[in-house]
Structures are given as structure tokens and as C-alpha cells.
């Protein structure tokens, strides 16, 4: 059944990563008083960029955490309809343990979003085609927030969108292709829209849990009807969960580790060995070429190649089982049946909209500066998608038969250091004592509502 997506109601981030809008800034804010928050929404409403065809120079998106929705006056019985993970928030102590946000990544030490700071109620995402435009719009946002007394703001500037993330690898290549969006027409394999947006059938042909309310609570008929025909209205329809995490990358530490691990007994170093080990950890070469297709050397011609599987590399001789991309999306390599594995992998996909931050570099960080990634991803089911990938695939030391190998790049490594195993003939190479290369510096679960839901929020309390 073809699904018709309501692109005029869905926010644009669902349909595109704004790659032509190379400049971005994210603003986290705290809603003090509900009327001020709703007044801000009134101002935002005509300015929200939707998923409909778009050619503007500036795009603006808005999202709210559970605390933000409550603060705006959304009644408890509606908020209860959201997923438990969203309502509990990213910094719930049990969740922190689950996500690996402990030790250096403990939310108590976060720059924003932590339990002791101002609540991250809302998120404004500004994308612009040139830096001047970004600054002008950001100044406008600042003024709009300021004049309504909305405080507790944190501005998160992204680095100009380039081809590589801070460790020096081409990034963001593999994205699920969503049924119902234009790209799906040529794609062999698509993922149902309901995996990334509420109110549409998901991979199991079902609707994910969503906040419904009696039609009587929406007398102006601003919200869309519950698609099951229950007679209720659906606050969640055309909205989705947005995971936002600020991940600091220890670029220097990463390359130092790789240097030390590839130095020969006589102290000499081969830059090829260095790049090869780093590539084994990532699963792609710096250009982006996947190891399963280019096992021995970088192959820039394959930079954007996403058309590959692991069935010809079951032991991980080309791309290690523990490599970052082979665990973030194991494709056909879970278990003995490739088709079943592909179907299972597709139930744990994320729509990734990350941006890097910090000074652009050649892999060396300048003193005092912080480099990293704003991990931004969209998913209709936080538990089955984002949290599953983070816990069961990335941070899991026993992933797919491994023993002590959390993700070499992004995983939470225990104090004694993690292990990274590179399968080889006749005997694997084992690297031990991997320190932590990535730590969480801030984060929150947001909900990216449909425009009609924003309109509903704006008129609450009238």
C-alpha cells in the first residue's frame, strides 16, 4: 500500500538533511512561563520549514522535550501518550547506565541538559546557506527569545558542513530510504515511513504508540484525526522523536592510540598501517570507501558507496565484526540468514542528521578547542531504534559473538580499556587498552511535532 505522507505538516528535517544549508546553529532553551512559550510558537509558526519541496536559503525547525510540552500546558493525559523513554528523559539514572552515559559522560558533568542545569525544554534548529544569513537569523531568534523572557538558552554552533567528521572520515553515507519520499522510487530496499514518523504504519505494519486526545479537547479542529478511526485526535501525527546528543571526540587521543598501536618494534611508522588500523575501526576508509569493497587500500571512487553487504565477509576479514559501521548497521551479518538479518537490521534504523562542531581540522585538535558531533537522529520508537543501537550494537562488548569489544570508536570503554579484534589469517590481531575516544557532553530527547501540533500548542490556554 502506498503511503501518502503529509509533507506540508511534517517538519523538513524528516525529508532532508539540509546539505545545501551548510551553516547551522542549534539553540536549547528553557520555557519559563507558558504564555511566553506559546507567544514564541505564534511567531515561529509561519517560519517552520516543512517537508514540502523547499528552495529557501534559511530553514527553521522546532522541537520540545517532555518538560517543554508540559511547560507549554499540554495536559498530563496527553503527555502520557508519549513513549516512556521520552517522558523519563535521557538523564534518568537507569537510562544513563543503559546508554553508557557514566564516568566521563555522566550527565552531572554535561555542558547542557544535565540534571543540575536549566531544563532543556525546547530546541530551535537553524540552517542557512551562508554564514551572514545564519548570523542575522540567529540574532533575530535571540531577540525573539529575549523579549519573551525565555532564558536558559545554550547556543550550539555547528561547523560548516563538510565531507568529514572530526576524526577525519567521510560520514553520513548510509541513510535509510523512506517509502513515500521521492528517493524511494529508484531504491531497491526502502524502510516504511512509520519507522521515522508517527501516524504511519511501521516495519511491522503497525502504528507506534502516540499521544491521542478526545476530539472535544480540540474544538478548533487543529489536530489531525487518529488514523485508526477511533474518533480521537492525534497530537503525534506527522511528528517524531528527535535524539540530540553532543558527543565530544578526542581526535588527538584517537590518532595517538592508532600511532602507538601501529608503531613497529624499531620505532618506525608507516602511514599506511596507521590509516589501515583506523579504517578497520571505522569500517570505511577516510574517503568513505567501505572495507568490504576496498579491503586493502582506500578507493576514493567508492566514497559514497552504500551498496554493499557482509555475506561475503562472514568472518570479518575485510571489515571487522566490531567495526563501527558494521555494528551501527549490521545489514545482513546478524545470524546465519542474510535476508532475516536485513529485515531485523531494518527495524533498528535511524534517520541521521548529525552536524560536526569545533574548528575544522586535519585530524589534530588545536589546544583548548573541542571537536565533536551533534548526533541528531529521528526515530518513531526510541527504545527499538536509538536506544537499541546504542546499547545492543554499539556499546555491547559481546556484540555478535565478540567478548570485550565495545565499539572501538564511539563505545563506552571500561577503565582498563576495551579490546578491538581485527580478524586476520592465520590469527587475529588484538588491540587492547582502547581508551574512551568519545564522551557525551549534553543531550536530550525531543519531539519534533507536526506543524498542526505546534499550532495546537500555540493556542493552548486560550
Amino acid at each position, binding site marked *: 500500500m502506498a503511503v501518502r505522507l503529509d509533507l506540508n505538516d511534517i517538519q523538513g528535517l524528516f525529508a532532508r538533511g539540509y546539505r545545501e544549508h551548510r551553516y547551522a546553529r542549534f539553540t536549547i532553551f528553557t520555557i519559563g512561563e507558558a504564555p511566553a512559550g506559546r507567544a514564541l510558537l505564534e511567531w515561529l509558526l509561519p517560519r517552520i520549514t516543512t517537508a514540502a519541496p523547499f528552495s529557501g536559503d534559511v530553514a527553521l525547525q522546532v522541537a520540545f522535550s517532555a518538560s517543554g510540552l508540559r511547560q507549554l500546558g499540554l495536559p498530563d493525559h496527553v503527555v502520557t501518550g508519549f513513549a516512556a523513554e521520552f517522558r523519563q528523559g535521557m538523564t534518568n539514572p537507569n537510562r544513563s547506565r543503559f546508554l553508557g552515559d557514566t564516568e566521563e559522560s555522566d550527565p552531572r558533568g554535561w555542558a547542557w541538559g544535565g540534571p543540575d542545569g536549566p531544563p532543556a525544554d525546547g530546541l530551535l534548529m537553524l540552517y542557512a546557506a551562508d554564514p551572514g544569513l545564519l548570523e542575522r537569523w540567529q540574532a533575530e531568534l535571540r531577540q525573539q527569545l529575549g523579549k519573551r523572557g525565555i532564558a536558559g538558552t545554550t547556543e550550539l554552533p555547528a561547523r560548516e558542513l563538510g565531507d568529514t567528521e572530526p576524526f577525519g572520515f567521510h560520514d553520513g553515507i548510509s541513510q535509510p530510504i523512506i517509502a513515500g519520499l521521492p528517493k524511494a522510487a529508484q531504491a531497491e530496499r526502502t524502510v516504511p515511513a512509520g519507522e521515522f514518523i508517527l501516524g504511519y504504519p511501521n516495519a511491522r505494519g503497525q502504528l507506534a504508540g502516540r499521544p491521542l486526545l478526545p476530539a472535544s479537547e480540540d474544538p478548533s479542529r487543529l489536530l489531525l484525526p487518529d488514523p485508526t478511526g477511533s474518533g480521537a485526535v492525534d497530537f503525534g501525527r506527522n511528528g517524531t522523536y528527535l535524539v540530540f546528543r553532543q558527543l565530544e571526540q578526542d581526535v588527538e587521543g584517537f590518532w595517538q592510540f592508532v600511532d602507538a598501536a601501529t608503531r613497529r618494534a624499531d620505532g618506525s611508522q608507516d602511514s599506511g598501517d596507521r590509516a589501515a588500523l583506523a579504517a578497520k575501526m571505522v569500517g570505511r576508509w577516510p574517503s568513505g570507501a567501505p572495507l568490504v569493497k576496498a579491503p586493502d587500500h582506500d578507493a576514493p571512487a567508492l566514497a559514497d558507496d552504500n551498496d554493499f553487504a557482509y555475506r561475503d565477509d562472514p568472518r570479518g576479514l575485510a571489515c571487522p565484526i566490531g567495526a563501527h559501521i558494521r555494528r551501527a548497521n549490521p545489514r545482513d551479518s546478524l545470524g546465519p540468514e542474510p535476508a532475516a538479518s536485513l529485515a531485523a537490521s531494518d527495524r533498528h534504523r535511524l534517520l541521521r542528521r548529525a552536524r560536526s562542531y569545533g574548528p575544522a581540522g586535519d585530524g589534530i585538535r588545536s589546544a583548548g578547542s573541542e571537536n565533536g558531533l551533534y548526533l541528531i537522529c529521528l526515530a518513531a520508537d526510541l527504545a527499538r531504534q536509538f536506544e*537499541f543501537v546504542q546499547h545492543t550494537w554499539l556499546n555491547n562488548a*559481546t556484540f555478535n559473538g565478540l567478548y570485550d569489544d565495545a565499539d572501538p570508536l564511539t563505545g563506552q570503554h571500561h577503565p582498563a580499556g576495551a579490546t578491538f579484534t581485527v*580478524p586476520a589469517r592465520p*590469527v587475529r590481531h588484538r588491540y587492547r587498552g582502547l581508551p574512551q575516544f568519545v564522551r557525551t557532553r549534553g543531550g536530550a530527547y525531543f519531539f519534533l511535532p507536526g506543524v498542526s501540533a505546534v499550532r495546537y500548542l500555540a493556542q493552548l490556554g486560550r
Partner: protein
Amino acid sequence: MPHQLGVTIRAQVAADQVGPLRNWLAKVAQNGAADSLFAFGHMRGLHFAKLFVLEEPTDSGGRPIPASLVLMTEVDAPLRSHLAELIDVGGDGIDEAFGFCAGYPGPVAQRRARVAWLRRHLVRASAVYVNTVGRGLEQIRQEARLRDALEDYLDQRDWDGRAPDDVRRELQAYVAGRADLAWAMKPPAPPSLRFRVREAAHEVGVPLLLVPLLPALPFVLPPWVVLLRLSELRERPVTQRPTLEHLDELASYEDFVTQNPFAVVGFVRPGLLRLVTMRVVMAATDYGVRHVYNHADLAGIKTIHFARWVPLDNWRRMTFASNYDGAVEAYNDDFIDQVWWGLNATFGNAAAYPPTRWVFCGGARYEQQFKNTLRIQQVPVPVWYTAYPALSAVNIENNARIRAGLRGEMNPADAGQWLSRL
């Protein structure tokens, strides 16, 4: 090597002691005091243990079922010495815990009286799944040490350019030459002859006994299926969701090590039809886990170390409990994707389960309903012990195969395959 038992001890909590027991358990859990109090780590052959309270529910007839304290252990046979060790080794904890229960003889009573009391409170499981029948704790630990030793040995040398069978021969010589590892050159001993004879007799005997009933099947099965279908049509979707408080309590005991404990309890749907169906399905489950799924795999799921189905209160309720690898979300997904048919056939007979169709369909396939109902029915396990917190079931199986590969001749290709286990 011994076979493994799923031991369940259940006792009614004394009338005014439910609150104090719950508080005591929470305190013991919080301080990490359980390890020294129960000394589970000193009990021979103990793989896992869990201790939890079943709250006082009211059944469909409005009859209350008193709260009870449940101790579940997965342990190497024989039962007699395990029961004795619960008192001799873990007596401090057992005395305190069951001291909240009606009629427990208490620490002043003789050891024999307390062991006898535990024995009287044993509850029979209708089926016990053991990841690999006959693989005892000692073997699991030994084979983990073997793997560590081989990995360390491999790290010390440069193997590039060597032929795989040559490398293997060197590893064989290394193991054979180490007095503390030489056992690995021999296969593990099988379970006792008595156990094997009993299991073989069961495997053959049960189908033989059923053959005479076959002619009755065409007369019994159709009306049974129709009645079940009619009963299914009266089932309602699960609309309830777990509270955040309950989720938080469950989560506070989860995701510390490789494995997690799992325990759910629910009412069997009322009526003879459901009761008989449940009993038949459980008998089939018992046969299946003993003779089909008895090595490293429960119908495609490789992450479960132990599982058991225990009927309670004269089959008014059913408990399912397990020790599994990874997170509950992944566990539930495995259920939904791989053993939905088994879950539906069993728990379709339990109240508060998503509606099933024709016994096997629907049910667990309603993802949200299924996940919600499992979380709602899940019981927090404040005291939980694992003997091998860092090993997944897949790791344990791999370790066993590393050991097995030390014996006999191998061609270079097989030797290469074997080396890839390291």
C-alpha cells in the same frame, strides 16, 4: 558433568511482613549486600539465582492470593547437596529472607529442619530450558580460562605467514604442556548414565504413549480449535501501559553486566478449555526443550542461558523466568521475531496477553501491546546472582568449541576456521 536443574522455592509471606520484606530486599539490593549475605558465589555449581516477591493479586473470581517469596536457582545436580548448601553456605541470607515467611523454622532450628522446610516448599516447573544440557559451571569456567590462556599466548607471538594447521599444532602443544590446562585435551564428561537413560526413555516413551491417542485426534482437535477460536474472539487488545515508577524499578535492577534476570507472572485465562490448552502446550514445551532445543539455541534464540515455566497456585497462574544476554528490548524483539508462535501458544492462554488468532497468530506480533504487557507483568528481581557476568551464551558455546577443536586431526581449512574462533 552433571545436568542442570531449575530449582524453585516459594513460600507465603507472613501476613504483616510483606512491607518489611520488600524494604529489606530493596536495602539488600542497594548496598550490594546480597553477595556476602547469601554467599551464592560459594555454592557449588550455582549458575544463577534470583529472589523476588510476588505481590498479593486477586484472581478473576475475586479471591486474593497471598504474597509469596520466590527463590529460583539454576544449579548443577544433585538437588540434595544444593538444598543443603543453601543452608550451610547461604544460611545467613536464607534465614533472613525466609524469616519473613510463615512457618520458617529460623536460625535456631536445626539445619535438617530448615533444609526439610525448603524441600517442602519446592515448586515443580513444567519445563526448564538449559542452554546446553550437561555443561556444568566448572566446565564453563574452565573453558573460559582456556580461551583466555590461548588468546594471551597468541598475543605474545607474531603469526603472520604461518599455516593455520601449523599454528593449531603449536597451540595444541602449548595446552598439552600446561598442567593446569591439560584437561582441555579430553572431551568433557557427559551427564550421569542414569540421567541419560531417563532422558532417552522420555524421548522415545512419550511419543509411543501418544500413538494410541492418534485415532481420537480427528474427533477432538476440530471442536477444540473452534472452541479456542471462539474464546479468542472474546479477547480484548491490551490498552494498559506500564507506569514510569514500575519501569524505573525494573530498570534499576537491569543492565549492569552481560546478562539480565527476567521474571513474569500472569493469570491463566479462566475456564477448563484454557487450562487444558495451557497444560498440553506446556507438556509439548517440556518435550521440546529436553529433546530438541537442548544445545545453544531455543528455537533460534541464542541469548538465553536458562529459562523455566512454573505453574503456580494450582495452575491459576503461570511464571516464566529466565537469564538472558543483553537488554530487555532486544530480548522482546527476539521473542516477537523468532518464537512468537511458541509464546502465543503458551501465553495466549494467559490473561492480559494481546489477542491471539488460531492459537499461533497475532499475540506477540502486536509489538506495542506485547511489550507493554510483558513489562506490566514483569516482576522486579532485587536479588540476582550470576556466576559468569561477562560471558554471553554465545561466548560460552564458542569456548566449548575452542576446546573441542584442540582434539584430533584437521586440514588447513578447518584449522583456519577453528582459529577464527579465537
